[in-house]
């Protein structure tokens, strides 16, 4: 089922949590709301669920499959919601937790006892917890609780599945496993899913499309490839993965950052405007001698070679401190060591010109 949000505002006292947010989630897709804490992503998710009410602004609406559900409360929207801290019912067993949504249905539409039992076990099997049905939440590990919460949310056959930082409270290893599992599950069930996360890696790996949020507004919506390789704003560029920043100016139509010159800045800008160049660590090249391309002189500060790539911290002649990722092969070839002087050149970068106000 598709979801559409129109002109969503939400203020808490003087704090503006959401500022005129418009968003469309396509039927069956897995969308990630990505942003730092305080960016409004959780508030937006809670508004979709009906746990939070948007400010009454003209034109504001929450639509499920083109139907306005603004006036329906959380109980009437039939959404599955997985809370950040799971919010499992502590006085109920795993079985009772999953059965809850089925048992509170009005008598007319309620399944029989046996049917509920069958459905609960089917769900517990789906999340690999059928052996723990009689345990209480306090007797489960974090990852197991997370799966109970998911099974409970799926029990009512929701039209929409909403996940608030689903893996936030788990350790890295469990997180990785659950991520892959969630993606597989989504491919099997095809429930429209919105996931809130502050972890860019998680969003890039799991989602069909990513909504990058900042200060209550949407910065960019796009596939993981689009937002990573073609960031629309500085914020997106900086938030998705690490970047190196060079400050410079526009001079006769070119962006100049010391010896590095970028021919076509992203936007036409007046001469003298401040420009910022963002380069990902793997888009910088280290050479022991100038290689013909425009390059910066830099001194190696630190080398960290544990991991898939070798991470090198350098201090540029222009004063910027940068981080470069190179392969182990290349690292051995060049025989780099701290304090060595090298030349940095750029494969590609992204230039943002600051708004020029007079």
């Amino acid at each position: 089922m598709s979801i559409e949000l129109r002109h969503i505002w939400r203020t808490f006292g003087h704090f503006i949590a959401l500022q005129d947010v418009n968003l469309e989630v396509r039927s069956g897709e897995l969308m990630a709301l990505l942003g730092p804490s305080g960016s409004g992503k959780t508030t937006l998710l809670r508004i979709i669920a009906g746990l939070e009410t948007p400010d009454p602004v003209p034109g504001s609406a929450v639509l499920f499959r083109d139907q306005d559900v603004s006036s329906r409360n959380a109980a009437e929207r039939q959404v599955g919601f997985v809370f950040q801290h799971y919010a499992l019912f502590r006085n109920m067993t795993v079985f009772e937790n999953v059965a809850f949504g089925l048992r509170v249905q009005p008598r007319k539409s309620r399944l029989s006892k046996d049917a509920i039992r069958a459905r609960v076990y089917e769900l517990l099997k789906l999340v690999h917890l059928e052996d723990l049905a009689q345990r209480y939440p306090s007797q489960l590990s974090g990852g197991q609780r997370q799966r109970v919460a998911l099974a409970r949310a799926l029990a009512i056959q929701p039209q929409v599945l909403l996940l608030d930082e689903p893996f936030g409270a788990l350790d890295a290893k469990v997180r990785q496993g659950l991520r892959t599992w969630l993606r597989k599950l989504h491919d099997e069930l095809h429930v429209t899913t919105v996931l809130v996360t502050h972890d860019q890696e998680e969003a890039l790996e799991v989602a069909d499309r990513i909504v990058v949020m900042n200060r209550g507004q949407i910065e960019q919506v796009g596939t993981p490839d689009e937002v990573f390789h073609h960031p629309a704003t500085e914020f997106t560029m900086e938030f998705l993965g690490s970047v190196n920043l060079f400050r410079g100016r526009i001079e006769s139509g070119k962006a100049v950052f010391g010896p590095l010159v970028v021919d076509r800045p992203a936007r036409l800008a007046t001469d003298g405007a401040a420009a910022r160049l963002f380069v990902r660590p793997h888009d910088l090249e280290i050479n022991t001698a100038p290689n013909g391309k425009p390059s910066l002189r830099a001194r190696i500060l630190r080398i960290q070679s544990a991991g898939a790539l070798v991470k090198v911290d350098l201090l540029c002649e222009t004063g910027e401190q940068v981080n470069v990722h190179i392969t182990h092969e290349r690292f051995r070839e060049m025989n780099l060591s701290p304090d060595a002087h090298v030349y940095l050149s750029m494969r590609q970068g992204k230039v943002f010109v600051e708004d020029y106000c007079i």
Partner: protein
Amino acid sequence: MGRLAEPRWVRNLLIGVTLLFLGSFLLLPLVVVFTEALRNGLAAYLASFSEPDALAAIRLTLLAAGIAVPVNCVFGLAASWAIAKFEFPGKAVLISLIDLPFAISPVISGMVYVLVFGLQGWLGPWLAEREMRIIFAVPGVVLATMFVTLPYVARELIPLMQEQGIEEEEAAAVLGASGWQTFRRVTLPNVKWALLYGVILCNARAMGEFGAVSVVSGHIRGLTNTMPLHIEILYNEYNFVAAFAVASLLALLALVTLAAKSVVERRMRQEEAQ
């Protein structure tokens, strides 16, 4: 653990002082109550309860507690729910207001009722016209009991509910549960031990209350005397055996309360440890 380096005699002295204190101030009076009550034998002890005034006093005490405890239960749940789960103006005032009955002397609370409902009071003439009696009648006794026991349930529930937050309630709502279903299946089971604890304390206070009830009751034998008031009257009439016999009932209640309280406390600790 033997880690403390105090010499043995210091330890024994401290333990001795504590036991002496407990013995003379708690245990001894308890023993006195029962020995005095049984001074003239079991028959005389039992006879004290078959007296109509004594029976009436026991009945009124049970009635007052029987009304005050459930009412305070409902109030306590409503107040703590409101305080823990919603934000509203005047919340801080409400929290401190709940403690008012703890802060003022019970005699004063009794006096307030006399001033409001008594013949010379604000509502006195209006009530007299309709031939309704509150002061020096059963309703006054019940009202005074309710007033002094008001904080017990709410006090136990508020901190627990605040700590538990509203996430489980939200989860229930999203799963389609109505407000009542959420309360009955999620909220109430989560606070049941604290609620029971509050009820036990509330009941003990309701049955033992003297000051406030004394002011509004008028001490009409067989009509407006509760057990504590009845004991006082018997004692003032030098009817020691009967006085201590009724007193022994209250003492028994205290022992039962203590036992129930420690059982519930243990359950609460277990639940917390989970």
